[in-house]
């Protein structure tokens, strides 16, 4: 039960050092130093790095509960991204730098900005650009917040800062980024669901808890269904002992989890009513992440189109064969 021991260790670290008050403080621009050094010292950043390279040498299946926990706790630092970035760097023969690494797989927009989840709290950004990966110094970029009270950033690097540490990699960074976000989405969705179920049991109207009303029960049931589906989709991408997930499995995970966000977030806010949209109540910490991570690294339409292309290109005689051959857990 190695993953349980690992998970217990991360859970207690996050409960202790990344409580909602800390999440709010960091989102408000507060220091990340204490939390990051706790994470760095814990060794979790090297979960997916091979043992020969000084890492834990664990596979995706063991890492999944940790990444899910990052989402469930709304951890405002890119621990999951640093895990996979370090694995990618060591595989390419690069020495990973100390510090938090964010991922970016999309080109700059018309304003020259690159959207980087966790960009404002990262030391480094691993960027997919022109067919290779580049490790960029986050301090060299002009940074604008992507949203108020968010650690996600819009970043622009001067030309001289680009192509400093550039290396070849056949990894599909966008798919990997999407797969890891899907696991975080599964965790955040689980927390949104748990908060909503608890609230429905506590809040009383018409003389009884609102969870006793059939209309609320059915909304919660639908939320449970989509949370379960998102979880299963993410688990499927993390089923193996490999360090990097398969792109098509990441596509399914991100597409299904992204689709679920709208249903789960809308249900949570409808059941919570006004209290749910206050800054003080914790629900917003998680639903804001559902919106942001659904958008990051491609929405469901992008990933579904990639799956659709693979489906039409496959030799499978029917759709069941396609999912069984390409996507089933074996």
């Amino acid at each position: 039960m190695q993953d349980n021991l690992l998970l217990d260790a991360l859970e207690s670290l996050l409960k202790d050092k990344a409580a909602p008050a800390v999440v709010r403080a960091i989102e408000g621009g507060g220091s990340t130093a204490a939390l990051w050094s706790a994470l760095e010292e814990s060794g979790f950043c090297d979960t997916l790095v091979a043992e020969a390279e000084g890492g834990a040498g664990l596979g995706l299946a063991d890492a999944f509960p940790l990444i899910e926990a990052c989402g469930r706790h709304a951890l405002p630092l890119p621990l999951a991204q640093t895990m996979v970035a370090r694995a990618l760097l060591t595989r390419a023969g690069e020495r990973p730098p100390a510090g938090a690494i964010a991922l970016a797989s999309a080109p700059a927009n018309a304003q020259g900005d690159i959207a980087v989840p966790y960009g404002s709290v990262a030391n480094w950004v691993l960027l997919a650009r022109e067919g290779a990966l580049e490790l960029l110094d986050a301090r060299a970029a002009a940074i604008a917040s992507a949203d108020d009270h968010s650690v996600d950033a819009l970043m622009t690097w001067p030309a001289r800062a680009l192509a400093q540490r550039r290396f070849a990699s056949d990894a599909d960074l966008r798919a990997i980024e999407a797969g890891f976000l899907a696991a975080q989405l599964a965790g955040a969705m689980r927390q949104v669901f748990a908060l909503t179920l608890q609230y429905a049991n506590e809040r009383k109207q018409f003389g009884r808890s609102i969870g006793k009303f059939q209309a609320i029960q059915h909304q919660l049931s639908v939320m449970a269904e989509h949370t379960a589906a998102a979880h299963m989709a993410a688990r499927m991408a993390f089923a193996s002992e490999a360090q990097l997930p398969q792109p098509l499995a990441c596509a399914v995970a991100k597409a299904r989890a992204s689709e679920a966000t709208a249903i789960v977030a809308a249900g949570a806010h409808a059941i919570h009513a006004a209290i749910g949209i206050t800054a003080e109540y914790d629900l917003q910490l998680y639903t804001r992440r559902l919106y942001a991570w659904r958008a990051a690294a491609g929405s469901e339409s992008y990933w579904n189109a990639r799956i659709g292309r693979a489906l039409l290109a496959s030799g499978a005689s029917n759709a069941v064969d396609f999912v069984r051959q390409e996507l089933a857990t074996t």
Partner: protein
Amino acid sequence: MLDNLQLAAIPKEEESMRAEYRAFIANEVRDLPPHVRARSWAAFDAEFSRKLAARGWVGLTLPRELGGGGRSAFARFVLSEELLAVGAPVAAHWIADRQSGPLICKYGTEEQKQFYIPRICKAEAFFCIGMSEPGSGSDLASVRTRATPEGSLWRLNGQKIWTTHAHHSHYMIALVRTSGTAEDRNKGLSQFIIDLSLPGVTVRPIVDLAGDAHFCEVFFDNVALDENALIGTEGSGWEQVTAELAYERSGPERIYSSIVLLEPWLQWLKSLPNPSAALLAQAGAIASHLAVLRQMSIAVTARLAAGLSPVVEAALVKDLGTEYEQQLPRLIADTVYADPDTPPPSELVRTLSYITKVAPAFSLRGGTREVLRGMIARGLGLR
């Protein structure tokens, strides 16, 4: 509840049977066009069921010493998947194989097992399920059909309705009242195996909106049942039915009811010179949902295989699965008829028309959405 749906893989030994199942089934259905195969687990073909039985493929999960395969729930998942994926006409043996056989094995006397199970496995005894009545749909505990003790006999009076393939079945396992009144709700209910050839039983098929007659009304007029007709314990009918529904709701048929439609649709998609990103995304959404639902169905199967009764998990997967089955014809119709200047192929039209008409039934049979969501809510501790 989320923790009960774990990632699971089909064991290699069960998976290894797939190719043999597939080759046989493909040969059997090769002359049936998609719009006929689309009837799948609603299509009754006793001869096909007997051919499966001859290969030992009916009653795969039933005990070997009674003529079954003695295999796990995963074996049945693989075979069911192969049958449903191409729309083989499985209705004749389906209910006996899925739930009546397991129910008899779980609650039956030795004599009942010896009498029914070998015949189920030979596809010589077909079963139907007598639950709904004219006044009892979702409110199943309000059934009024009554069996009254009369010496060593039971005297049965009442009526069942929407009973699938009662007109072709040899036996019905019915939930009836044996004591108290409808106000006693789930107390005083029992299950009986009713020989449908007995005097006093009248079966009338009901024609559905597609022109098929698969469900029936069944009347019981002073039917004399011997003591061996009672299955399980008198008064425990409700608990038994609940356990039976875990089998009824957990299978891949709750995902695959519209799946044959994907064949002509994918063929059509592949024929398009330049499918749009939106169309590709539709196709991808259909595949990604299928991949996840299938894995959830395997998770439920893993619980069945472990000897658990995954009532709530099955309800959750069935609700999502039937939503998917119903979305397919809706989404596909929108893509197929988006451009009147490029009309779709005839067989796609026929298959789509059929599935579109019958799709509302997918979330009715085996328990409505509302009933399932109520069960999920109970599983969440809300009621």
